[in-house]
């Protein structure tokens, strides 16, 4: 199976880059290898990496969800608005998560039932749900959440890890099992490879897509709530532009933008690379915006390198032998 070979070699390449980054960073700073530093790396981007797990499913399915950052903000604003209006905080969280899942459900419904490209539908979602967040909070900032809620984002939960990080690791494991070990996961791949074939094989394509978009909305909602917990206050413009970072991580992880291939392991490695690279560049006094440029270049070069590798005769022979 050349596809399998491709995925494996991609993961190897990512692992090499990751080890290289870590070794280089370790020589740059003595504190780099501390557990605290690693936990901190994740803590500062935990919302993005949580959403990246759901995004992996959506992209492998051959779709894309540009609305995640707006749905995050929408959920956080629903939470804040409910809290402000005197609803008990636990209920406010439930309302926020239901709102986010509904946001995903509505978009999924349009994609699944009309066949309109998810790029367009979720672009409308990106603009519309950010708008809904603005309608809710206007230009106010709402804070003063209960202490236990703030602790979700900051305090140690399991060993040195905060709750959000534990949740992310759990999602990786559960997501990996679902994607790679269940029939639902196989359906996600088949649809991504060829939706016509999937339909003729009796797979309920709209239903799978609806499930994935609802899940994507729900996960974005969870991330938005956790973001609110970490920030301590909510504004309508939080998380603007996160969708690009999240999609970058997933694509760097070797997931094909056309769907049908990629692994969660690859995405996990890519997440580690992006976080460590940013950290290392930060230690080397490279500014944050230049870091973004470096990651953008890495994204292009990684796909370009793969395309060039594919043309090498040696690799082609290997792939043929494997097939």
């Amino acid at each position, binding site marked *: 199976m050349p596809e399998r070979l491709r995925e494996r070699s991609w993961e190897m390449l990512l692992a090499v880059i990751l080890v290289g980054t870590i070794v280089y960073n370790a020589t740059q700073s003595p504190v780099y290898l501390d557990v605290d530093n690693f936990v901190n790396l994740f803590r500062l981007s935990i919302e993005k990496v949580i959403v990246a797990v759901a995004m992996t499913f959506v992209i492998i399915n051959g779709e894309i969800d540009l609305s995640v950052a707006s749905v995050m903000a929408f959920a956080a604003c629903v939470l804040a608005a409910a809290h402000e209006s005197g609803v008990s905080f636990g209920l406010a969280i439930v309302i926020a998560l239901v709102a986010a899942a509904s946001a995903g459900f509505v978009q999924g419904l*349009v*994609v*699944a*039932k*009309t*066949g*309109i*490209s998810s*790029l*367009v*539908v979720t*672009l*409308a*979602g*990106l*603009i*519309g*749900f*950010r*708008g*809904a967040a*603005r*309608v809710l909070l*206007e*230009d106010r900032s709402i804070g003063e959440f209960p202490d236990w809620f703030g602790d979700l984002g900051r305090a140690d939960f399991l060993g040195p890890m905060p709750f959000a990080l534990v949740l992310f690791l759990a999602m990786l494991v559960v997501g990996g099992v679902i994607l790679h070990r269940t029939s639902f996961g196989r359906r996600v791949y088949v649809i991504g490879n060829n*939706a*016509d074939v999937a*339909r003729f094989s009796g797979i*309920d*394509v*709209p239903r799978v*897509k609806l499930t994935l978009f609802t899940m994507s909305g729900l996960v974005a909602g969870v991330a938005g709530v956790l973001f609110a917990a970490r920030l301590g206050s909510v504004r*309508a413009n939080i998380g603007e532009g996160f969708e*690009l970072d999240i*999609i*970058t991580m997933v*694509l760097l992880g070797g997931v094909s*933008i*056309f769907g049908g291939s990629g692994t969660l392991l690859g995405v996990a490695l890519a997440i580690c690379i992006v976080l460590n690279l940013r950290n290392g560049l930060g230690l080397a006094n490279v*500014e944050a*915006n*230049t*870091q*973004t*440029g*470096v*990651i*953008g*270049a890495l*994204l*292009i070069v990684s*796909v*370009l390198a793969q*395309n060039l590798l594919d043309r090498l005769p040696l690799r082609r022979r290997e792939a043929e032998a494997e097939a």
Partner: protein
Amino acid sequence: MTTADVAGLRGTRSRPGRTAVWIRPERVKELSLLGVIFVALLVFGFLVDDYFSGRIFNRVTTSVAITAVLAVAQTLVIVTRNIDLSVGSIVGVTAYLTGQFASSNPSASPAVAIAIAVGLGGLLGAINGVIVAYGRVPAIITTLGTLAIYRSWLISHGEGKTITADSLPSWVVDLPTRTAFSIGGLDIRVVFAVVVAIVVVLQVAMQRLRWGRRLYAIGSNPEAAAQAGLPTRRLVLGAFIACGALSGFAGFLFLSRFGNITVVAGQGLELDSVAAAVVGGVSVLGGSGTLFGAFLGAVLIDVLDQSLVRVPQVSEFWRNAILGALILAAVIADVVIGRRFRRRWSAEARPHTRVGDGSTDVPTEAPVLTGAPRGGEARDA
């Protein structure tokens, strides 16, 4: 704009043996969009006192110039089944660098400054195009990357400095308020007239020239286009260069409109350009949509933008919520209307599919009327 319309209608009438098709489907999209714009104006006329004055017309025409150019630029690329997410960054880079040039060479002629903006934009577009067409990296990945790269280059180049309107030569700053001519009390700004001219010329080129028809052919079916011997790579590269050059021109317009340019100038314009194109009936799956439609999409969004803030009952915070709903409504209406139209249209057109000379565009556009060659599968289920 009327020129494009007339050209389209004349094309329909002069085609031999095709009397059954009384109007082209993309004309229907454009006309219904015009209708929506008209209705929106009427509604705002009701809600806002003194709405139909020269001021709102001037506001819309000045501010739509930038998004209209970007919408047209984006459409050139989207039609080939690609996308350019870096246009906002290209606008930022060209606006900033052209501003730097103009403020350090106040005596330089306007033509030089505009040529720098357009040339620079074309260069950045060429980088995108080479990576997409020859490196075979999907456009969304490439331009997501260059979106970040161009912007971060600009931020480190600019070192947080701002270009101020005071430092610019007066012809740059005065440009947006220059009036070309007046019709019945309405001032037509030079900028708007130029943009309309660009849209008309490119629309005619896309409809009449081989280059334009080939871009549609690539977007309809890339494999078929390659099999038919079209130089697909060169054409896609050309589309990206054209998109970059137009974005560079938009960058110049941005500079002259705002005068004060920071390193984050133009951020987010890529989404506005895609939104305008989509509202204008351009299919993101390629092969379908007109520049005139994209222009109208930009106008509609801008009318909403400029008018909503003046409606007392609605706060400005509703802007994005309404825009999101509008995009969704536009694409859903497109599918619903398109489906009905296609049934009737294809029934009439089928016997004549092969009629016409090589320049006839019916065969390429017929199957993609609803613009969903790939998305079609889920619809029937």
